């Protein structure tokens, strides 16, 4: 049979399209020149410059604080949601499912705008706290999605065996269900962490003055065309971290050899 080569050529082109800009950015971060259009020799000076930037370090600290809080809270809330959604045929779960789906489809700008108006209406001062509340909200839905997928091929016989052997419901949950489900919950938490670190639009709407995260600070620097080579260096480091996170997450979500 003759296979058409066109789809494979498209696939190859698309992969090049995906990675060319990223590669260009990493390459440029080692460019001695201040401008992107001239290669002026290899240099690590933009990376050295990074260590002198206290504002970037502070923003990174903020990002990490928010992402840690948001991923921990959304792991708890999202896992509970995934368990609740297993009760299929009920009106409550229909409404619940719709609520969980809304943050997944609502454009970021609407989520940011609506949360800003909520915080203003309730007189809440915009701060790292309001950013964390916003991040928990969209992370929750993603964790629920990941854990739900894991629950679909979860072997509940192990839990029932524990119950038959005299474990209470709580004991069975803590000693059997949670450990078996842990990789799924952790993968959800990792996704939440990345989404939180990544978020710009929602954060921009609900952040107060002075509470910059890494993306909002970088964005402001880009808009002012300030220290672009430093952003290249920073971006390269962030990309490296992302690749490491993906590698870990791949490990977690890979199906285990035996289900128990």
């Amino acid at each position, binding site marked *: *049979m003759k*296979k*058409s080569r066109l*789809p494979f050529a498209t*696939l190859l082109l*698309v992969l090049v399209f*995906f*990675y060319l*800009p*990223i590669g*260009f*950015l990493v390459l*440029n971060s080692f460019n001695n020149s201040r*401008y*992107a*259009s001239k290669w002026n020799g290899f240099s690590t000076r933009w990376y050295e410059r990074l260590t002198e930037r206290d504002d970037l370090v502070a923003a990174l600290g903020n990002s990490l604080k928010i992402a840690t809080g948001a991923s921990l809270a959304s792991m708890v*809330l999202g896992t*509970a*949601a995934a*368990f609740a959604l297993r009760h299929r045929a*009920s009106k*409550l*779960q229909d*409404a*619940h499912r719709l*609520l969980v789906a809304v*943050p997944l*489809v*609502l*454009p970021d*700008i*609407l*989520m940011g*705008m*609506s*949360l800003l*108006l*909520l915080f203003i*209406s309730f007189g809440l001062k915009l701060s790292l706290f309001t950013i964390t*509340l916003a991040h*928990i*909200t969209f992370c*929750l*839905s993603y964790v629920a999605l990941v854990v739900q997928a894991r629950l679909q091929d979860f072997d509940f016989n192990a839990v029932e065996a524990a119950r038959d052997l005299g474990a209470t419901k709580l004991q069975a949950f803590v000693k059997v269900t949670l450990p078996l489900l842990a990789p799924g919950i952790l993968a959800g938490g990792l996704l939440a962490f990345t989404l939180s*670190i*990544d978020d*710009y639009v929602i954060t921009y709407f609900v952040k107060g003055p002075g509470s910059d995260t890494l*993306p909002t600070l*970088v*964005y402001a620097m*880009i*808009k002012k065309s300030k220290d672009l080579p430093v*952003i*290249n260096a920073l*971006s390269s480091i*962030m990309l490296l971290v*992302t690749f490491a*996170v*993906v590698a870990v997450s*791949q490990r977690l979500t890979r199906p285990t050899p035996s289900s128990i």
Partner: protein
Amino acid sequence: MNKERRSEILATAPSFLWLAMFVLVPVLIIFAIAFRPALPAGGIGEGWSLDAVRSLAEPAYLSLLLRTLWISALTTAACIALSLPVAYAMARLTPVWRSRVLLLVIVPFWTNFVIRVFAWQQILHAQGYLAELLRGLHLIGPNDRLLGNLGAVVLVSVYTYLPFSILPLFAAAEKFDFGLLDAARDLGAKPARAFFGVFVPGVRQGIITAFLVVFIPMLGSYVVPDMVGGTGTQMIGNKIAQRNFSDRNLPEAAALSGALALLVLAPMFLRRKEKPQ
């Protein structure tokens, strides 16, 4: 039964209440504040007013809406057109290569969005290699810019949303019975005819999902037109941000957001109503 119900409510309560508080209530507040008067200093006034909602009738908003729909439609069409052959090719790979390529498609989804748009901004920059190259080849004039136009916004939007449309189409292509294509060819169909006549209808559900996951977020696009677009490519999202941060007119920002919310959420509810049949 009663105990079962209680444990269901107990498991549902945390996420349900959280989302009601931070999703449902805020969306309702958008619609409420759209009917409030704006204070000159930037606050929200007492009482009710139709000023903000009435301002939506300005002709400038109609062209803003049409431009938003047009940019979103172009991006979605380009994403689906590219994703169809990609999903086809991925589904025909050996399982080992399939999971490798799948990983390569997913990784951009994990990388920072602002950074990816920034990378393009540098590539398309007036003094960048690409502009110099195209100028050298006389493909663009000395004063032509690669940034700030519709092409740049659509290109970078496609770049950021392509993984979202590849994934559902790949999921559909994986379930597609490729024997049908062989049958079509045995019956004399040319490869292109078999592709469009058999494969494309076969992954219809994937196309619908891909459409939704690209088109809906595109309607609320803000970062891409802000970073690589210009005044001629402003979308609804940019206007909302402008009303909010520059003009400090929260009721007008809310009215615009409300209109966008209706535009985005209406198809979702219509789809739910259709489903049971």
